């Protein structure tokens, strides 16, 4: 068959020859991507034009083109998943990321396990979530809705250009191999099924608030309608990113075998920064909704969050900064760098252009007020972002200027640690502050967090703790928790007081009133639950940081080691053969339980080996055992960690997500209605 236009005809890295047999899936997938690109490009151009002309019919056509593009991407995704599950090794992507021994669930997960597939997954989420956000956007006004579709379609077009021209998952191999290369051993884990899709979903959903913010600026609208419309999407992005970060920590803790869960790796940092920016935005947007202030700041924050996502993608995909995530390196870095520059110039230009119309009206609130606390919290979060950003790009910048410099964990802890402590202080006091003047009621309310902090401080001192950071952090964490519990106690106290005045028992009506208060103010109480989750998480992080114990030992069978009150006895070792790898397992007895740390070797993957950590977890501490090696004399070397309160991190993460869900699911007045109400109060700019 002569060489013709084919899915792989543009790539330089792979054979150009085309199969003699039809490769329907590859052509269908590549065709769907190309059609999606045409539709997205058409949607972008038409939406901007229709928005400028305020042509309602063309705005609808532009929006429908976006939906059609999303459907094309969905089709391409179905094709890729089908190719993976049917082991179609004629596709380079299938060969490079799976093999016949890979379990089916991980074969399906290989969809986002490689560079090209993860970009397709990102585009799919952008298409689906973007469509969902555009469906109800008409209430925001023709022009704003059209521009939002235009910005979103432009972002989608970029991803599709990369997928069609540079990183297609539908490239065909000249010769179909009998088996694939398989998935990287580190990725052969249950965490692969949940961490990457959640993180990528979080990344993709940041584009929606960005698109609506940019559209509002383009349309000359500085009211809070776009905030109300995109609030759920911003919260979804934040919730997904929170879950993704915690799941990433959990995965690193269980798989990497260094006893920790956060190493300030560049890839961790670039996931943390947009989360910090969105955390700041979710708080500062309240100031705009309540007091009509901080408009420019909110626009800026949403744009910064999205730019940080693009920056993070550039860092992860380009390999310009050394990272543990090197399996994701490819040649698409320059494309993302160009996209980052374009987005930065667009955002900065737009903000500069509209700066005149974004000045806050009305008097600023006193420093000691809810608004003041939120502004301070925002500034502190910006400070942390700056510290993390500089730490991340320092190797790149210093390398360009001469000698490459790399900062370690110590830099982040010393620079960002104090800011985190001040943020905790603001979290303890902020929710108790009124929006305007803080007076005696605030001071009375502060008694509870203060008392809780002092009790913990006294407990730590009497327990012999002398570390100043620990003596500051743990009481502050307790104070934040006490504030949240105090806020929950207020409605219950009202019921209690009503009981006392009526000199009777608590009636069903009283409880109904209390629960009604929680339901009516679910956004507020959901936020407090999220705060509580964060406090539990931070308590786990702080305790495991301050009081982790570590010991390296070499033991003969029958010998024991004693560490932090735990006695572990080495029983013996054995070799096990599993479906896709062999394991050297060393058994250790801890009380009535047996821990089995192991070293796995993947013969089919060139003998790559991986440590399998053994962890026994309790609310007090984790016993974390890593097998370093087994000697010829039957002895085994172990590295043992005792990690206090690590399980609190995972529990806190779950509570945090629960808070986001509880505060936003089933809202009686959905965001769209809020947006419409806000719209009625404002006069759109010409």
């Amino acid at each position, binding site marked *: 068959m002569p060489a013709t*236009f*084919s899915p792989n005809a543009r790539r330089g890295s792979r054979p150009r020859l085309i199969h003699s047999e039809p490769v329907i899936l590859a052509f269908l997938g*590549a*065709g*769907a991507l*190309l*059609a999606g690109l045409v539709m997205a490009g058409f949607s972008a151009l038409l939406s901007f034009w229709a928005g400028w002309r305020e042509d309602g019919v063309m705005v*609808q056509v532009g929006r*429908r*083109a976006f939906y059609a593009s999303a459907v094309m991407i969905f089709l391409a995704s179905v094709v890729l998943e089908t190719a993976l599950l049917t082991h179609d090794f004629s596709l380079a992507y299938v060969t490079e990321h799976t093999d016949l021994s890979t379990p089916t669930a991980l074969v399906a997960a290989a969809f986002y396990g490689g560079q090209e597939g993860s970009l397709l997954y990102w585009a799919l989420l952008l298409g689906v979530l973007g469509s969902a956000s555009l469906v109800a956007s008409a209430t925001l006004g023709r022009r704003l809705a059209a521009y939002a579709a235009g910005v979103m379609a432009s972002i989608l077009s970029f991803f599709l250009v990369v997928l069609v021209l540079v990183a297609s998952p539908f490239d065909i191999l000249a010769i179909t191999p009998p088996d694939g290369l398989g998935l990287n051993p580190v990725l052969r884990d249950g965490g692969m099924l949940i961490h990457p899709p959640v993180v990528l979903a979080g990344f993709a959903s940041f584009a929606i608030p960005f698109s609506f913010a940019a559209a509002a600026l383009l349309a000359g609208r500085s009211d809070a309608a776009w905030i109300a419309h995109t609030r759920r999407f911003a919260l979804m992005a934040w919730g997904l990113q929170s879950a993704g970060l915690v799941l990433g920590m959990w995965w690193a803790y269980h798989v990497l075998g260094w006893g920790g869960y956060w190493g300030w790796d560049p890839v961790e940092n670039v996931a943390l920064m947009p989360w910090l920016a969105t955390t700041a935005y979710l708080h500062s947007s309240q100031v705009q909704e309540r007091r009509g202030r901080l408009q420019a700041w909110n626009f800026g924050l949403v744009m910064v969050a999205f730019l940080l996502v693009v920056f993070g993608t550039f860092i992860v995909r380009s390999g310009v900064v050394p990272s543990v995530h090197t399996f994701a390196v490819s040649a698409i870095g320059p494309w993302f760098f160009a996209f980052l520059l374009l987005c930065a110039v667009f955002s900065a230009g737009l903000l500069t252009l509209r700066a005149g119309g974004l000045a806050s009206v009305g008097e600023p609130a006193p420093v000691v007020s809810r608004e003041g606390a939120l502004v301070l919290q925002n500034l502190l979060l910006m400070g942390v972002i700056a510290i993390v950003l500089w730490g991340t790009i320092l190797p790149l910048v210093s390398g360009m200027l001469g000698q490459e410099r790399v900062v370690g964990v110590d830099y982040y802890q010393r620079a960002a640690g104090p800011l985190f402590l001040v943020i905790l202080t603001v979290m303890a006091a902020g929710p108790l502050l009124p929006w305007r003047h803080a007076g005696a009621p605030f001071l009375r309310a502060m008694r509870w967090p203060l008392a809780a902090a002092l009790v913990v401080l006294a407990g730590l001192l009497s327990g012999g703790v002398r570390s100043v950071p620990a003596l500051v952090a743990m009481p502050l964490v307790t104070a934040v928790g006490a504030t949240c519990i105090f806020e929950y106690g207020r409605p219950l106290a009202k019921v209690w007081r009503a009981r006392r005045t009526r000199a009777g028992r608590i009636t069903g009506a009283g409880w109904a009133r209390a629960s009604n208060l929680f339901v009516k103010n679910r956004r507020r109480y959901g936020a407090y639950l999220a705060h509580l989750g964060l406090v539990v998480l931070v308590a786990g992080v702080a305790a495991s940081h301050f009081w982790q114990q570590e010991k390296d030992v070499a033991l003969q069978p029958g010998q024991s080691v004693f560490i932090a009150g735990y006695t572990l006895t080495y029983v013996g070792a054995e070799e096990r053969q599993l479906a896709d790898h062999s394991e050297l397992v060393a058994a250790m007895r801890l009380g009535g339980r047996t821990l089995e740390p192991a070293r796995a070797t993947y013969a089919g993957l060139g003998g790559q080996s991986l440590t399998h950590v053994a962890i026994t977890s309790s609310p007090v501490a984790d016993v974390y055992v890593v097998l370093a090696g087994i000697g010829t004399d039957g002895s085994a070397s172990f590295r043992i960690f005792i990690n206090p309160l690590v399980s609190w991190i995972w529990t806190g993460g779950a509570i945090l997500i629960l808070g986001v869900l509880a505060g936003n699911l089933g809202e009686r007045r959905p965001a769209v209605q809020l947006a419409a109400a806000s719209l009625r109060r404002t006069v759109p700019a010409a």
Partner: protein
Amino acid sequence: MTLVVATLLLFTAGPFVLWPLIKTPDESEPPSPSPPADIPGRER
């Protein structure tokens, strides 16, 4: 072949995308009713 597939897909999607231009005024969706006004004291 990719171009052919893409063209066929675009052709298929055409009526959906262009529907606002195709439909006659009679087929236009009726204007959505305005949300009911809040009645003080009434729980929705």
